[in-house]
């Protein structure tokens, strides 16, 4: 019984983590394609790939900055109220 409960919890958790990672990838692809591939041609050029690689790192950085700000702000507000 306990083993089955843990299996249910584990499966929900990994589904949630997957959905979150998937959403992050979708947003990153959308934003970076918009910024880096302005005129789609017959293949990705070297400069487009350089732009995409940097954009990926910057979007992850922005995601971390925003996560930290948001979590610290709502923790603060919960303490005050």
């Amino acid at each position, binding site marked *: 019984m306990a083993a089955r*409960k843990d299996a249910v919890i584990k499966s929900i958790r990994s589904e949630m983590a997957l959905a979150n990672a998937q959403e992050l990838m979708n947003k990153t692809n959308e934003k970076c394609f918009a*910024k880096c591939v302005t005129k789609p041609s017959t293949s990705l050029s070297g400069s487009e790939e350089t732009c995409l690689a940097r954009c990926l790192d*910057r979007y992850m950085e922005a995601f971390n*900055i*925003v996560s930290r*700000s948001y979590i610290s702000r709502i923790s603060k507000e919960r303490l005050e109220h």
Partner: protein
Amino acid sequence: MADKFDDATQKELANFVEAEQAQARLHSSIHMLTSMCWDKCVTGTPSTRFSRSEEGCLANCVDRFLDTSLFMVKKIEEQRAQHGQLS
């Protein structure tokens, strides 16, 4: 199907699911805010690091957005107090 979970386990699972749903709402807000702050703050071609102004903009973006929400609520409450219930 296997046996049902007992009452205590069912309750524990219900609490777990509720906590996960709160987590999902948190994630959804963070994705929305990241997308919005990225569009507002990251205007140039992505480089090996953010420029100073991009970094400052991103660092302040979430807090000013939440300040904006609070400011709007305050204004609406002021107007209600002046003109009576608008509903």
